[in-house]
Each structure stands twice: as C-alpha cells, then as structure tokens.
C-alpha cells in the first residue's frame, strides 16, 4: 500500500534551500570567473548592496517596527527581526565597550553555509557570506545611516563563531521637533 504523499511539510525548508543553493551556485560561478578572492568578495558585497537597498522596503512593509532612537535599537532590530524574518535565525548582539557605534552580530547557525563543508583549496580569504554585509550596508543606507559592515570572524575560516561587525559612521539625525513659537 502506498503511503499518502506528504503534504509538503517542509515547504519553508525547500524555499530556504532554494535560496541557499542559488547562493552557492553563484559563489561557485564567481570563483570560476575571478581569480582573486578580493574580487569575489567585492562583487558579493556590491550584489548584497543592490539587494539591501530593495530589501529594506520589503522589510519595513512587512514588519511594523517603530522608529528607533539609538544605534543599539537598530542593531537589535536587525538581529531579532530582520534576520529572523529572512533567514530564520536570531544572531546575538554584542556591543563594543569602547565605542558607542560598534556592534557585532554573532551568528551561531548560518543557513547560507548549510551545504558548505569548507572553503575550496586556494580560496582561504574568501568571505563566503559577504553578501550579508552588503545587504546590511545597503539597507542601512536607505534609511540614511552609513555604516561599515565586515566579517570579523568566520567559521569557515576556522574561527569558533561567525561574527559580523557593524560600525555606524555618521551621527543619527536628531528628530527636529516643530515647536509653536
């Protein structure tokens, strides 16, 4: 007797697999096209930027977030709402003690590298997930915040965790209140 077919219980998983596999195919193609790791990293960052400037609109439309008043609120928002919405993970946020503008997102689990065991030979400085940096940078720029986003640690390169560092560069503009004189 044949089992009744599963009613696609892993629909979401397949969708995520589609994105992850497509990303993998893209990186593989880039490694074929460009010899230097920096070129691949830059390309991924630029691509991520292009995605980020559009993704932020989708994000704001879907989540009813209130206006943020500090950088740490923004960092929390990125980690707890945006990452959860798009990648299904919640990185933890740590703040650099010495500076008010520097934050780190620590990714325990990174779905993008689900099918990656190790970096290919001769590609030791490839930032596989550099797209994420570009996405965050592009998204922040569309809400008038400039930031420097880089990978501080990468599990694929042998570190214990994957850490994305966000450094906000300009001051948040203070809300100009209209006062009746």
């Amino acid at each position: 007797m044949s089992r009744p077919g599963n009613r696609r219980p892993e629909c979401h998983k397949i969708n995520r697999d589609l994105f992850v596999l497509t990303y993998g195919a893209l990186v593989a193609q880039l490694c074929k096209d460009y010899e230097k790791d920096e070129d691949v990293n830059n390309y991924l960052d630029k691509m991520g930027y292009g995605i980020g400037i559009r993704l932020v609109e989708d994000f704001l439309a879907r989540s009813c977030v209130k206006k943020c008043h500090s950088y740490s609120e923004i960092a929390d928002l990125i980690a707890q709402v945006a990452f959860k919405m798009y990648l299904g993970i919640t990185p933890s946020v740590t703040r650099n003690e010495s500076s008010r503008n520097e934050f780190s997102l620590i990714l325990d689990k990174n779905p993008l590298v689900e099918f990656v065991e190790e970096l290919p030979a001769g590609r030791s400085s490839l930032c596989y997930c550099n797209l994420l940096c570009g996405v965050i940078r592009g998204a922040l720029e569309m809400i008038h915040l400039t930031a420097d986003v880089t990978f501080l640690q990468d599990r694929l390169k042998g570190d214990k965790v994957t850490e994305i560092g966000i450094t906000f560069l300009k001051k948040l503009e203070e809300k100009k209140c209209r006062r009746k004189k």
Partner: protein
Amino acid sequence: MADEALFLLLHNEMVTGVYKSADQGEVENGRCITKLENMGFRVGQGLIERFTKDTARFKDELDIMKFICKDFWTTVFKKQIDNLRTNHQGIYVLQDNKFRLLTQMSAGKQYLDHAPKYLAFTCGLIRGGLSNLGIKSIVTAEVSAMPACKFQVMIQKM
C-alpha cells in the same frame, strides 16, 4: 513567506551582474544565458534531491512532468503550472500565466526583449531537476506577453 523576496532579489541581481561583467569582457549574449542556465541546472539538481526524498517512485515520464508542474512549481513559485501540453512523443509545453519572476517587471509587451534573461535560470532549474530524476532534456522558454510564459521541454532519448 519572506524568503521569496530574498530569492527574487538575488535572482535579479545575478542576472544584472552576469550581464554587467559581460559588458566589460565583450562576451556575447548567448554566453550569459548559458551561465545563468548552468547555475539553474546545479540548483535544480540539488533541489529535486531534497524534495523527492520521501515521495513515491514515479510511474513514467508524464508522472514526472506532472510532479514538476504541480508540487515542484508550487513549492518554488507558490503556484501550479496553468497548462501542460504534450504530443506524447517527448515534447512538453508548460504554460505559466503569471510567472513569479516576471510579474514585477511588466504586464504586457514592455521590456519583452529583456524577458529571456530572467527565464534562463528557471530553464536550468527544470533541466537540472529532470536530470536528477533520470531524464535528459533541453528546456527553452518563450514569452509573448508578460507575465505569461511557456517552457518547452524536449526529452532526449539516450
């Protein structure tokens, strides 16, 4: 699901990126389409493996095509193929009246000449999926009025 937006944007960026790097290197249009199609092929292979892990064995070719039209398309593009035609001699035409990757682009004839770029990846996806199910094929796409498009699958007898 929010994932859809991510994939759509990534796909569009990929197409733009491939053509931009082609401009610099003076590569023909055909090679860009091939690159995109090959990426889709690899993704299709992987995807179909994960998808059909627990499904029952397929009876014949037509069964496989129906699976692609219904379950596969629904999972990837959130809807089924609207029309499947075949001549029972190895040629299948899959018609999607509202193809997800084209809906945001135009609703008619505008940008028609750019449409093939955005279909190459999906052609590869179908070809890769069929390949890992044991069917060798050639997949092409045509668009006459967006967002409707037709994918033609030609089964190759090995």
